[in-house]
């Protein structure tokens, strides 16, 4: 492709190649304490995520739903029992690199990529402490992050044993887990309705008459305020 593209300079690669992998490739050097994190959190994060990462106002809660036992097993038990109504970030995330990468790349939401490495370490330390993964006097750094990984509550909670990875590197090679057959006649005895739309759900989406064309073989139903009236 004569004349097309050019070699990237090392500084350019550095400016954009910010990803951090589970094996910590890409992780910047640095360190930050829970205390430093607390200050930063109050300044830059609290308004959206709540003082303890518990807010459900702007996004689902970051923290909560994990136990000391989970930290031991690496499986968040409430995912199985269903005892927690909502899944928090810490209930799901298996890899601490994910959080470092994401905070550095995207947070705070309104000024992404504004945090320095030490700040990201401090904020992550704060969140780890909220989740009781590290103590209050902890300093997180590139040197000890791999150890903390060993305490992530859901670190064993992921499986790639499925047929939905379109490559060979993981999964079962594409074999579907659910099967149906193309039966054409008398396929079952009766029709069992498992769930139907509650009336409030129809009305919660505004007037459906205004969401359908004014011509054609059908019209939209009168719902929402139109229905109430």
């Amino acid at each position: 492709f004569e004349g097309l593209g050019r070699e990237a300079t090392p500084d350019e690669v550095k400016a954009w190649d910010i990803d951090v992998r589970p094996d910590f490739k890409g992780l910047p050097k640095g360190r930050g304490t829970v205390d430093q994190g607390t200050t930063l959190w109050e300044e830059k994060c609290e308004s959206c995520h709540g003082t303890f990462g518990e807010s459900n106002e702007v996004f689902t809660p970051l923290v909560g739903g994990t136990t000391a036992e989970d930290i031991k097993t690496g499986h968040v038990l409430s995912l199985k029992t269903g005892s927690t109504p909502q899944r928090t970030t810490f209930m799901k995330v298996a890899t601490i690199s994910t959080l470092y990468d994401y905070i550095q790349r995207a947070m705070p939401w309104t000024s992404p990529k504004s945090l320095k490495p030490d700040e990201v370490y401090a904020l992550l330390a704060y969140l780890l402490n909220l989740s009781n993964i590290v103590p209050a006097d902890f300093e997180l750094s590139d040197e000890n992050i791999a150890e903390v990984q060993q305490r992530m509550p859901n670190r064993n909670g992921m499986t790639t044993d499925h047929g939905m990875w379109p490559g060979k590197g993981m999964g079962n090679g594409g074999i579907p887990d659910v099967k149906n057959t193309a039966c054409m006649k008398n396929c079952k005895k009766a029709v069992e309705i498992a769930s139907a739309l509650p009336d409030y759900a129809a009305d919660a989406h505004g007037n459906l008459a205004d969401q359908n064309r004014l011509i054609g073989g059908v019209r939209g139903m009168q719902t929402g305020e139109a229905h109430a009236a």
Partner: protein
Amino acid sequence: AAVAAPAVAHAARGESAILELPPWSTSLGKPVAANPYGMPSKYESNLVRRESPGLTRVGGSSVAFAPLQGLFGIITPSGLHFERHHQGWQDVDPGKHRLMINGLVKKNMVFTMDDIMRLPSVSRIHFIECGANTGMEWGNVAVPTVQYSHGMLSCSEFTGVPLRELLEYCGADFKKGRYILAEGADGSSMTRTIPMELVESGEVLVAYGQNGEMLRPENGYPLRLVVPGVQGVSWVKWLRRIEVGDMPWATKDEAVHYIDLMPDGQHRQYTSTQEAKSVITSPSGGQVLLDKGFYNITGLAWSGRGKIKRVDVSTDGGINWRTARLETPVLSKALTRFNIDWNWDGKPCILQSRAMDETGYVQPGYGQLRAVRGKKSIYHNNAIQSWKVVENGEVSNVQVL
């Protein structure tokens, strides 16, 4: 009675819509290029993208659903393409936009849009479906219409450069580098791991064109990845960087979201393929049939594993099925439009469609799907959709086992 008489006489002569010539037949219309870039008729304003109230809390990390209830064929008008952003959408200056390729390559490289648009170009029609499409319905019926139940689905003709060409040009190590990372230029700099096998197949495109023009800002202008058959989140928008690597990245949107919760408490990670699925788009939930008599049942079918082979339709809740007509073209990893005749006798009934793809996979029912995956997956709900019709013609969303 005297007052009513003229109206009756009139009715016998015929309809005023015909007898009194309409204004558009008796006047001069507007000039060409009155709209240099045209828009739909003013009578079509009900068909727009909409959020589902309560689904998300902020518009910058949310979904706007495509109004499938009123769409035809397989091409989604770009103005109605569904939206899903994680940190809002940006109208990127294409003159300043760059694509970097790094990692397990001989030469880390940078391309301008000028460079990319001079490279060998291909055009292909593919569907894009968010992995969370129909996600609100895993547990129960939750939303009234097909816009909200299936509207994170669109299909476009994409134009761009096969990523394979670019990687070969940069001297990628295809032996060690079995994964690539795609990264966006927006605030979230969305990142997803893509298997190299898909890139090698030539199907993955670094795309700039959508339905004949440039991508829309909401869909990644000026550059996005096209990953046919794979859930939308991997089709990274505002694409700024591709890295070749030897392991998956476990980025936020493949380690905290877009993971499927199984009944045993484990999450399936890296579930990417969108399995065969279909839905009747009309008549559908929230619509009312005007009368009994003849109708054309129409809908969409698609599979992330290739072409649609057959679509069957039931009007009795899945006891008996008839095979629908498929419209041309039937393309791999593209929407396929189906149609079938139906005479509504005015009695209650339940409409369903069931897709089969070229691998022989048959779209499952809710019972079959939940038996394996429970009710909490959020992602990859491809169950058979049921629409219940009652005597007054109202159609509503139900789930049939």
